[in-house]
Structures are given as C-alpha cells and as structure tokens.
C-alpha cells in the first residue's frame, strides 16, 4: 500500500511485520513495491510480502479526478504554486504530452483512438469490466473533447476497486497450490513530478527503467508475450510503448495502427480491459500485476494469450512522472 496506509493496515490486521514499504509515487506505486519487496526477500529481510490496494474513489468523489475535483485549497505552496493558478487538469497534463507528440512526430488522433478500441475488445471478455460494448475509432473521435487533443474516450474510467499480490521466496512458492510466477526484473525511475517540469514532453522515465528492468531479466522486448501498460489515457500507452523499446521514438502511432496490441496480435495489451474500459480507482498499478499473473498462470479465460511465458507490467505515476517496470515470467530465472 502507498503512503501511511501500510501502517494502518498492519494495525487493523494485527500483522507484526519485519519489512514495510509505503512508497507513494502515484498509480505506479505497486510496481515500485514489487521491486522493493523482491529486494527485501532476496536480502533476507523478510520471507513473504503482501502488496495491496483498495479505493472507493467513485463512490466517494464521483468522476472528478481528471477534471479538477482534486484541488481543494485556495492558498497553494511548494512547487504547485507555479501551476495551480492556471486551472490545468489531470487530463490537461497528459493532453500536453499528446499535443507535443503529435507536433513532433505527426501522431494522429485516430492512432490514439485505436488503443482505446483494442482495450475495449478485451473488456468485452471481462464480466467485471465497467464498459463492455464494442467501440470504434469513430466513436472515440466523436466523443466530446475534455482537454485537446484528448477526447472523453481517450481517458480512463473512474471506478472503485482493489486488489492484492503476494510475493514470497521461490522455495516457499513451490509448495503452493497455484503455479508460481517469478519476478524476472524490476526497475523504477522519475523524470519530474509536476507536469511543467517534464524535461521532454514526448519521453518518460520508462526510457530509463525499461532497459534497466530488461537488463536485470536478461530479456529484450521481443521476448515479451503480453503487455500490461498503465492506460490512464491513450497517450500514456503510446509513450510507454516507445520508451520501453517496443518501437522507435515517434513510431508509436504507426505501431498501434498495425494492430499488434489487439486480441490475436503479437503483443496483446491490457487483457483485462484496462483502465480505459475495466477499472481505474485512482491508482491502477496493482491491476497490471494481477492481470500479468493471471496470463502467466493460464487463467485469463477468454482473454488468455496462448502460451504466455513473459509479461511486462509498466505503471505511470503522476503525469508520466514516476514509472515502474516489472517483468514477470512463468519459469524460474
């Protein structure tokens, strides 16, 4: 859990922990937790780690997260005082990235829309997904503009939700009655926090932590069978794809338009329906890990990627600010 949630949860459940981590970097916190937990287990600080998350954001706050509902105080201090007077929204921050990407590389709105369409195909297979009706590129482009160039259907849903992941030693995992999934490599990095400090509006910290995670796993992008990328917005996926090395910088639009990320493609994306269609309770990173594990255990039902052996989960926290990459595999490294 992130922030001070873990100490509260430890008290509530009566857990006498030997290791605790409340790293809070936004929606990618859970990818950072995996990196930290795996290191702690390797170091012998503890044997088993519970990573968990729960949020009733929709019930409590409504659909206000992306469009200004999160700002409360009149007086703003710290770095945010230089942004707060101008009424940018969370959607607006990602929209600035999309705008710059389109300017630099000619990326088109229909290429971004393709991401939402492909993820919706998987949502149709998930009975728990929030939106399951088929979607077309025209539907996305016809949905109202929230912050140019991002339409409503370029944006993730707001939902309630929660989940948990248990990490333990490989030795202990062998005794369990579920197939183990191994952490092959994990890394995290940050380029900025506030959007106005983003050094390159077309490049995220995935360009650093992606190659690091691959190096630790001894793998390359070609080895990945399914992608679970943080789809807060369609542009988030596009930037992460490029930065992780699945295509060259600037080629993300053409790459997704080729249909690689669709059901039946060579790199199925967000097979649970993603944040764009299934669930996004504010910080979605835990679900990337859960869906990657379901795929590697062969328990993803109709959305199962045939013979999935390696999955990549990549979370984005803040405004493409803090990125965490985790490579998971079916076989002991």
């Amino acid at each position, binding site marked *: 859990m992130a922030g001070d949630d873990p100490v509260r949860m430890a008290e509530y459940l009566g857990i006498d922990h030997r290791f605790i981590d409340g790293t809070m970097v936004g929606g990618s916190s859970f990818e950072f937790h995996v990196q930290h937990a795996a290191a702690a287990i390797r170091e012998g600080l503890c044997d088993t780690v519970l990573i968990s998350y729960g949020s009733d954001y929709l019930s409590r706050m409504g659909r206000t997260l992306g469009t*200004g509902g999160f700002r409360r105080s009149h007086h703003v*201090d710290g770095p945010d005082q*230089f942004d*707060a007077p*101008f009424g940018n929204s969370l*959607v607006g921050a990602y929209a600035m990235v999309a*705008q710059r990407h389109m300017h630099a590389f000619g990326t088109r709105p229909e290429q971004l829309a393709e991401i939402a369409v492909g993820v919706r195909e998987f949502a149709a297979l998930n009975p728990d997904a929030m939106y399951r009706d088929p979607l077309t590129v025209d539907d996305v482009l016809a949905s109202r503009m929230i*912050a*140019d160039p*991002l339409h409503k259907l370029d944006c993730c849903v707001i939902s309630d939700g929660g989940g948990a992941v248990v990490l333990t030693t490989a030795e202990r995992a062998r005794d369990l009655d579920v197939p183990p999934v191994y952490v092959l490599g994990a890394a995290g990095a940050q380029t900025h926090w506030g959007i106005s400090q983003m050094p390159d509006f077309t490049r995220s910290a995935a360009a650093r932590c992606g190659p690091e995670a691959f190096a630790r796993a001894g793998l390359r992008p070609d080895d990945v069978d399914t992608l679970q990328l943080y789809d807060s917005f369609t542009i988030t996926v596009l930037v992460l794809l490029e930065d992780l090395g699945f295509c060259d910088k600037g080629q993300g639009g053409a790459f997704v338009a080729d249909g690689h990320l669709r059901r039946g493609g060579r790199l199925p994306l967000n097979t649970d329906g993603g944040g764009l269609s299934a669930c996004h309770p504010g910080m979605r990173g835990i679900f990337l890990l859960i869906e990657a594990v379901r795929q590697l255990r062969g328990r993803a039902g109709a959305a199962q990627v045939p013979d999935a052996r390696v999955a990549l989960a990549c979370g984005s926290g803040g405004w493409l600010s803090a990125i965490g990459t985790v490579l998971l595999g079916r076989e002991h490294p």
Partner: protein
Amino acid sequence: MEVEHAEHWQRPLPAPDAAAAPFWQAAARGELIFQQCRRCGHRQHYPRALCTACGGDPAWQTASGRGRIHTFTVIRQYGGKPFRDELPYVVAIVELDEGVRMMGNVTGCDVAQVQIGMAVEAYAIVAAEGVGVPFWRPAAIAADGGRRATQTR
C-alpha cells in the same frame, strides 16, 4: 511587462516561501524573473533554494517577457470554480526566449488559434499584495521592425 490589477482574484493564490517570493513580487512590479546559477550558469524555473545542476547559489535574472508555446491544451471540462466558468481556456507550457519554461494561460485570442511554436508575450495580473501572476497573449508585433510574430492557422 504590463501589469493589471485583479478586482476579485478567485483562483488558487500562491503562498510563497523564501525562494519563491521574489518571483511573485517582481511580477507584481511588471518584471518577469528567473534563476541563473552564480557558479555554473544553469537556468531554472520554478525558483529553488539551490541550483539543480550543481547545488550552487541561484541569482535572479530579468527575462524579456517573450517566449514561444512549447506545448498546450485547451481545457474544455473542469469541475471547480472559478475555472469552470471560464471554459474553454488554454493552458500552455511557454518556453521563454531565455530558455526556461513555465506554465501559464494564453489569453487574447481564440483558443483555436493557439498552436505550438506561437510567439507569446507576458503580462501580469496582481492577485494580492506582492503577488503578480504572469499570463500570456499572442506577441502582436515583433521587435524586429514590425514583422508579425503571431503565427495563425
């Protein structure tokens, strides 16, 4: 830069610390300033207690008040006041001629006219005592002999 006075400032108000206060005070006087390191020359915004490049001591420099739009968005949905009463509006990252970037609103033209690379100039609105907030509008006439610097679609 020109200075206007807000009759009734309803937006979030900067609550400056020691590092930030000179920026807002200067803007209230019509000066746009940014930090440059005394030791390594690195330029930065927002203002900080030290240089992010070398840890040195930043000094203040006065900017020309001119820049270009590096990226932007048009906000068309916003939940909170006062912004929801001002929709649609432009939020941009402006790259100053001096190289540093800052967030701001671009006013004084239709939102459809705004594009990346557009030349803009700063003006300030005084929000409270000693707090001037920089805003941006299309740079109507460039200094070099009246060439129209504003790019339009």
